[in-house]
């Protein structure tokens, strides 16, 4: 029987990031799809209903929280603890490149071997890295759409993405990306949690993982 010990992995800020990011993504997908296609059509005139305005308001608040979360994660890329820094999980070192391929084989049930590591594996880390990049695109297009006239976001948005319509198109496509990411992320996390006793899911609540104790 292997002996396990508790190891502190995720800092408070990272967990705060995760628990701001995740619910904001959920809210943004639901309200975003509504704004794209307002399916509850109220033909009642002079009513107190502000369905679209309310949905947009929720979307904007969630978008601001989403932006804050992304900025926090960017900070942790460079100033977080050892497991949170970007070079710990990107396939830029020999160790991580090897880990990327072995994780792919392992996830495809082609090998039973896998490397025990406390932080992200290289595959997850790479996916998170690109997700944060896309999140930056998402909040920049969002701010461009929200502040379309004479703001700093207008000039950034117009030079990076072109017209409002082009920004809106990118923003809409990425909405689907985040829905896709959430689904895959939750599945793989549950899958890993079932296969390993490291306590992956609880680690995002309390920050601790379990590792085999050196004997």
């Amino acid at each position, binding site marked *: 029987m292997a002996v396990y010990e508790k190891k502190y992995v995720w800092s408070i800020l990272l967990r705060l990031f995760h628990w701001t990011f995740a619910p904001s993504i959920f809210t943004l997908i639901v309200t975003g799809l509504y704004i794209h*296609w307002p399916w509850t*059509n*109220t033909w009642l005139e002079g009513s107190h209903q502000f369905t679209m305005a309310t949905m947009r308001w929720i979307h904007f608040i969630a978008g601001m929280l989403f932006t804050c979360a992304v900025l926090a994660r960017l900070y942790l890329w460079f100033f977080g603890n050892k497991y949170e820094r970007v070079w710990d999980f990107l396939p830029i070192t020999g160790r991580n490149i090897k880990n990327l391929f072995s994780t792919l084989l392992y996830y495809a049930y082609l090998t039973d071997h896998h490397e025990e590591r406390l932080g992200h594996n290289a595959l997850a880390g790479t996916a998170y890295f690109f997700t944060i990049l896309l999140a930056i695109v998402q909040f920049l297009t969002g701010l461009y759409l929200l502040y379309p006239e004479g703001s700093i976001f*207008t000039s950034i948005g*117009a*030079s990076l993405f072109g017209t409002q*319509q082009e920004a809106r198109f990118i923003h809409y*496509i990425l909405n689907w990306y985040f829905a896709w990411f959430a689904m895959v992320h939750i*599945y793989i996390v549950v899958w890993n949690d079932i296969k390993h006793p490291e306590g992956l899911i609880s680690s995002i609540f309390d920050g601790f993982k379990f590792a085999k104790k050196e004997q």
Partner: protein
Amino acid sequence: MNRSLFMGGIPGTMSRRGFLRACAIATAAMGLPMEMVPKVAEAASDPKRPSVVWLQFQECTGCSESLLRASHPDVATLILDLISLDYHETLSAAAGKQAEENLEKAIERGNYVLVVEGGIPLKDGGVYCKIAGKTAVEILKRAAEKALAIISIGTCASFGGIQAAKPNPTGAVGVSDIIKDKPIINVPGCPPNPENFLSTVLYFLTFKKLPPTDKFGRPLFAYGRKIHDHCERRPHFDEGRYAEQFGDVGHRLGFCLYKVGCKGPETYSNCPVIRFNDVEVWPVSVGNGCYGCTEPNFWDTMTPFHKRLPNVKIPGAGEGIQASAGKIGKAALGVTAAAVAIHAGVGIAKRLATGSKSEE
């Protein structure tokens, strides 16, 4: 508005009162305070009228047509009293060799405002648009040399327009893609509102410089704000009342046209405020959504006009197959959900078959 308000007793002339009124409207359109009206009137009545050379390339003459319907001031006042229109293929009395001589003379005299209507093809040496044996790009470069400033009227001259839509067979571009060393202002639209063109001209006459512009070279006084934010149907948008399709109850009650593809939320223009042609209408007020015609590449990005977003070409499926972005998003999500289910199934099957636990 009654046209005769602007006219004098003689057809085609303008009363002093009508003239001042026209100046006041133009001043308001430029976003200038009313104290500026005398200045604008002074500049507009300067006997030294500025020379204007008007070139037409890949275009439908819709921009000129729209200008013909302007009334503040009307086109006769514009070309006879305000400016000296030295060359315009559609409006000039001269034709053929004589017209080309007029152009040559005007260019030699210099000091003119160059107005360009239509896109300019560059592919294969620009052979796809030729006038009097010269290619459009040659004529433009020659005329731009001595121009004080260039006004690109319409979306074609501004951004290339319909001929620049994918796949752009003639390699058409807008004026600002060719001429780099002159002040250029874009007055896009398909067609643009003549008021915006006239206000730009009057701004130039009054201040001897072009008005401030946005990132796409459009004067801010006309293209600084989004249509959506000035739309008379905006309350219906916020309260969630939409026409579901053309001709339904919501459409007849004048509800928001968002769901039938109105591009007002993505388009900058003063259409809801200035409106068109003295009859005080604009597309949305007569029940058709905005097509976004003042935006660069609108033929590519705003089509299908009655859908919210452009379709996505399916990669690898050749030219033919297109689907809406939403359909593709749902399909990707569905395929992944299936993949996840298979993956989970394989895991369970493997464990059942081997009876092994991955961890001891």
